[in-house]
């Protein structure tokens, strides 16, 4: 029987080509019509350190990077020792004989990665040797790979032909070695190429593209893992008149600058990770106070403090909700897939412009670096919102209304003072109790404009629900399907719109006896928020720096269900 799903892991030392291998295989397989998803994890250093990447290839859309490995490629001995236990019983290990030798363990064979690559005249083709060997093991036709190599290396330069030839030769050498090893895995099922146009994109790229689609024209950021690619993309994209993208001297500079830019009417964004968001705290409060719209992308990594800069975690939800001192509660949108990274960014801009204030968009390391095939977004169907701009001539008071009101822009009539101190209708400082009441209620009233977000639900009649958020969506979806197969009666809820929650999802969740929230943090930050809204929510947490594995998550949910609703944490 043909297999519909394969997982290949590349493990070794940073700089040995693990990321190139995983991305290359994903690109080749997606061009052939498969669905793909990559995963990578590495230490915080330029070269070296234990690194591994993974590519999952399937005939149907991929939702998690997968648990058990079909093929493990070991670039060094340490990789073999650390990862061999995760290989399936019928899996195969390919190891680099240029680095180490192994006694036969019944599931491994060696390849001289470097030597074979060098023999083609292109020492950089090591990863092609490996991809060729994998393709042989799963009976993937060579024409898929030839097409990929030709496309990838046709760059309009002299020497393109030679590079293409040597890469294809390297794959064939890998194939030949794999064939003579005698190993093989089940044959891979034929791909079903989708009829719609697809792109292969990473989470950070999708955020940048979403910002562009939303009409961003002002970006200031500061380099920080894993958000830096957004800064780099913006600097490349936003050039020319009326566009500004710039690397500031700190996150404090960046946030104040985008507040200034938005004050003049720009659609503004910054992108950072946990430590940067902490530094932005005071200025975010100022933006809430002065009612200045923009988007802050927080690509979460392990924390606190410097934490785990290159590992994944969902531990900034509470900070995103309350990043500043005093009374404020920021709108928070979290992307759960690479595709959602695009649409969530557009939505975040729409929210910011609609309610005239800062919006936090949460992404995660695991989404940021993940390459995935997604349908090419149809830009003509996107709804893009812009703020209500004051266009009168004089005598306007920016903050007079009890609710949201049009925003004057410098250069046009309607002078006012954007004031971080509590202020009167013009923007002058005031200490009057009735004014603080007026302005506080005005600021919070605007959140009502954001309660119409979309959400997913299934089996809503069940009294127990599972509701992941952010990047735990994929593993939770797979776990949920297994649970249904195991006969569990459960509802499914999911939304990108975390604060404020869509009014209808809140209403439904309040009816449940138990809402289980899988999330990657110690404290159960999102379930704590749900409990504060009166929902009987409980977390299943993990804090390893890695995403949930589907098997492990399924087992933990079943254990929890076995315990019933006794002893659960209530409001």
């Amino acid at each position: 029987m043909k297999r519909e799903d394969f997982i290949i892991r590349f493990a070794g030392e940073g700089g040995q080509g693990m990321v190139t291998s995983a991305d290359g295989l994903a690109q080749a397989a997606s061009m052939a019509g498969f669905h793909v998803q990559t995963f990578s994890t590495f230490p915080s250093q330029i070269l070296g350190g234990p690194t591994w990447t993974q590519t999952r290839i399937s005939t149907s859309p991929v939702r998690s990077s997968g648990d058990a490995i079909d093929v493990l490629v070991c670039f060094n001995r340490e990789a073999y020792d650390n990862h061999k236990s995760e290989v399936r019983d019928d899996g195969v290990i390919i190891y680099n004989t240029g680095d180490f030798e192994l006694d036969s363990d019944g599931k491994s064979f060696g390849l001289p990665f470097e030597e074979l690559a060098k023999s083609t005249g292109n020492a950089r083709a090591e990863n092609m040797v490996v991809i060729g060997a994998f393709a042989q093991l799963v009976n993937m036709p060579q024409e898929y790979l030839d097409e990929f190599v030709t496309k990838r290396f046709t760059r309009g330069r002299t020497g393109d032909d030679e590079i293409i030839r040597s890469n294809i030769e390297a794959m064939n050498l890998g194939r030949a070695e794999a064939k003579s090893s005698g190993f093989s895995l089940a044959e891979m099922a034929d791909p079903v190429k989708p009829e719609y146009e697809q792109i292969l994109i990473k989470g950070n790229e999708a955020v940048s593209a979403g910002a562009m689609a939303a009409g961003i024209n002002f970006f200031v950021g500061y380099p920080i893992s894993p958000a830096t690619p957004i800064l780099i993309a913006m600097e490349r994209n936003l050039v020319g008149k009326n566009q500004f993208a710039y690397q500031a001297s700190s996150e404090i500079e960046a946030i104040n600058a985008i507040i200034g830019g938005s004050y003049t009417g720009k659609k503004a964004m910054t992108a950072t990770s946990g430590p940067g968001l902490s530094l932005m705290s005071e200025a975010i409060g100022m933006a809430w106070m002065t009612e200045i719209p923009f988007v802050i992308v927080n690509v979460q990594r392990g924390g606190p403090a410097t934490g785990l800069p290159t590992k994944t975690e969902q531990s900034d939800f509470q900070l995103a909700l309350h990043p500043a001192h005093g009374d404020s509660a920021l709108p928070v949108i979290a992307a759960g897939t690479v595709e959602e990274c695009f649409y969530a960014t557009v939505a975040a801009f729409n929210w910011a412009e609609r309610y005239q204030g800062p919006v936090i968009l949460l992404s995660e390391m695991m989404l940021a670096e993940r390459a995935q095939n997604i349908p090419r977004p149809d830009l003509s169907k996107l709804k893009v919102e812009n703020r209500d701009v004051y266009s009168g001539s004089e005598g306007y008071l920016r903050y007079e209304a009890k609710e949201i009101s049009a925003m004057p822009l410098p250069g046009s009539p309607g002078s006012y003072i954007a004031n971080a101190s509590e202020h009167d209708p013009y923007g002058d400082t005031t200490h009057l109790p009735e004014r603080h009441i007026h302005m506080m209620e005005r600021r919070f009233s605007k959140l009502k404009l954001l309660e119409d977000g979309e959400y997913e639900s299934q089996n809503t009649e069940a009294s127990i629900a599972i509701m992941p958020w952010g990047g735990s969506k994929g593993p939770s979806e797979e776990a949920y399907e297994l649970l249904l197969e195991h006969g569990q009666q459960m509802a499914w809820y999911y939304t990108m719109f975390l604060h404020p929650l869509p009014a209808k999802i809140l209403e439904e969740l309040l009816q449940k006896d138990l809402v289980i929230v899988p999330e990657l943090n110690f404290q159960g930050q999102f379930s704590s928020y749900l409990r504060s809204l009166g929902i009987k929510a409980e977390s299943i947490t993990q804090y390893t720096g890695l995403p949930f594995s589907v098997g492990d998550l399924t087992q933990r949910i079943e254990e929890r269900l076995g315990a019933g609703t006794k002893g659960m944490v209530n409001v």
Partner: protein
Amino acid sequence: MSKKNPEYDFKWCPGCGDFGVRRAIEMAMQQWMVKTEIPVEQNVVVAGIGCSGNTVHLLEGQQPYGFHGIHGRSLPLAMGVKMGNPDLNVLVVAGDGDFLSIGGEHIAPQAARNLDVCVVIMDNGVYGLTKGQSSPTTELGTITSSTPFGKIETPVHPLNLFMTLGVSFVASSFSSKVKEMADLILQGMEHPGFAIVHVNSPCTTYNDTYSILKGDPKNNIAPLVYDIPAEHDSADRDAAFALVQADGIPLGLVYKDPDSSSFEQRLAGTMTNVKARTTDDIFNALVI
């Protein structure tokens, strides 16, 4: 529109130097508007926190736009305003605590970029609004509420600091010299780059330095301030350094880089042959 707002109750103390600075800003802005024929709403005054920051609320006559931001961050905020709409005339008002202490980290990057804004610093050598703590420009040994046994830090020399950081326009003034100050502020607005007009603006409540600055013949105190001699060449960087490193406080235009190229000009210069990317361009490169 001009305003008299009964709800706004902030007042500077009688005799505060900031009254003179405010008047000079109003005069300079008026002259700027007459000269450039721009309407008042094309001007934005950006402030941080401190007695100085309240200038934005106390300006009389036609009202410009204002941004009264958080403590120490007026420069990055002003960068956003200026780069968001380069047609605006952006004026920053700051104090010695706001600009030189908590905001000190923001001066060097703006000097390096040559951001085209004009900064007016009201230096009173003390934290006034929080009632008399020492500031970066408080003299060594001074007893203040936060230095009960005397200040131990060497004071910052602002003009020397600005020259060292490469600020492209450095001027010095005194709050009593309103007309001369207005002229320096106007020149700072006209300068295509980062302009700082540093003003000694005494605090009559916590650090009354009028007699030290102006001198007091009755008590044998020689004046600290003096007018920069007419022969000083403000385009000469070495001469400017010599001036700020000598004794006393020179008043007037210390330095003006004649070849100043602003942040916007530099940015535009690097992008003459670069094409912007659209969302479609991004997707086209990623099509499978």
